């Protein structure tokens, strides 16, 4: 069994933040996962942009996500000092995002598994959304 040990969890680098995405990262600091929806076409896109990539409207707005989803795919990196699980999680809102799965037994992860958002501090005093099994 390869269980994630908080003490051995890797250090998260500071995410790259720019004018288009600073609200996403501010929300993460407040313990919330937010998404960007287009008011013109009604669709959510990921990663969040100022201009909707699906219809080109600039009328896009942030909203609070449920923070719930399922694992679309994953892989546990076995090389290196600290194993970690990278994954794509399909959110209830219909978009799929890259993430890490934490607080789990790496050997029992599965595609389709239900997960919820949680947060990890990063270098540079930022906060990163990650997911854990429910």
């Amino acid at each position: 069994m390869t269980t994630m040990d908080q003490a051995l969890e890797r250090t998260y680098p500071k995410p790259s933040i720019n004018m288009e995405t600073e609200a996403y990262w501010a929300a993460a600091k407040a313990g919330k996962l937010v998404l960007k929806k287009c008011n013109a076409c009604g669709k959510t896109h990921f990663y969040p942009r100022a201009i909707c990539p699906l219809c080109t409207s600039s009328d896009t707005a942030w909203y609070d996500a449920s923070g719930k989803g399922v694992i679309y795919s994953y892989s546990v990196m076995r090389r290196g000092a600290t194993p970690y699980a990278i994954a794509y999680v399909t959110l209830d809102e219909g978009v799929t995002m890259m993430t890490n799965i934490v607080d789990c037994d790496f050997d029992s992860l599965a595609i389709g598994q239900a997960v919820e958002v949680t947060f990890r501090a990063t270098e540079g005093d930022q906060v990163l959304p990650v997911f854990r099994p429910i």
Partner: protein
Amino acid sequence: MSRTSKAYIAGIYEHPTRKAIDKTIPQLHMESAIGAVQDAGLTMADVDGYFCAGDAAGLGGLSMAEYMGLDVRYTDSTETGGSSYVIHVGHAMNAIAMGKCSVALITLAGRPRAEGVATLGTRDYGNSLPDLGFEAPYRPVVTNQYAMAAMRHMHEFGTTSEQLAWVKVAASHHAQHNEHALLRDVVTVEDVVNSPIITDPLHRLDCCVITDGGGALVVVSPEVAKTLGDRCAKILGHGEAIKHLNAGQVDLTYTGAVKSGPIAFDEAGLTPADIDYVSIYDSFTITVVETLEDLGFCEKGQGGKFVSDGNLISGVGKLPFNTDGGGLCNNHPNNRGGITKVIEAVRQVRGEAHPKVQVPDCTIALAHGTGGSIATRMGSSTVILGRNDA
């Protein structure tokens, strides 16, 4: 029959080094260039078009053209990672068809082993690379991205590690005959699945080699080809595509080959059944399985079954592939394997592959490149080549 072709590949060169301790990157570019130009029966002074990608130091082709003493009237530095050079073949053909150049040189070189870097990182775009903040903190490296594609393919279609292993087994059977190949030992399915897991479900032997080196291609007009004899390979069809994460609608079970393949086949007026030999970009075993499905060599989801039981081994299976040993065993210069895919396809239609792996009467060959990452954004390119009398 004799098919028409807007351009020919007249010269090829695969640098023999796999670790270039004592050579610079520009030097490797130029050694490769000279090799390909000589192979074509031309000189560097004949080159009037130059194509390179991000491995060439400097702004586009400016520094390399100066270093190599080129005098060109056409240049293209399209960058799509390892598939760049397959795309360059099509762009050279287009430029030649438009009369913009008549002898196009394409070069690649790098020395990741000598420089002690595993795989190339991204260039520093500051915070303007839009995907960076949403991926880099989760530590995606090349291996665990392709692993996620393999994991999903296994989940949806029942593909197994043993099936993926057959891709490596076939490559190793070919590499044993290549004196320049980095890995020449024949391996078994058991060897692959018993090699250490790197990142689930990929084992060490599911992953390609890291090598220094380079390669070059010379693409010429039909008029120039006529003066060079029957070693010129016809370019019959070419396609390219970008596949990305599609605003969050992610599907890791297919590649950009679903678009680039049909474009190339349509242009050539051919189907997968017409192909005698394939060079398929093999960064990982899963890359080959998904690409073969996407190019139409088998149904989606049946790639694992298709590659099994030696079906990719020359002289054994239905579809001989990567007879140089591919990126899995022979060479993956600078983590960019597109150019070596084209080089071995040209060897096959010339009848100049190693006799132990040469496909008898090889008339039509396909080379496919995948650049970037199968799990995020990739540049895909397919080229179909014909023997000089095809």
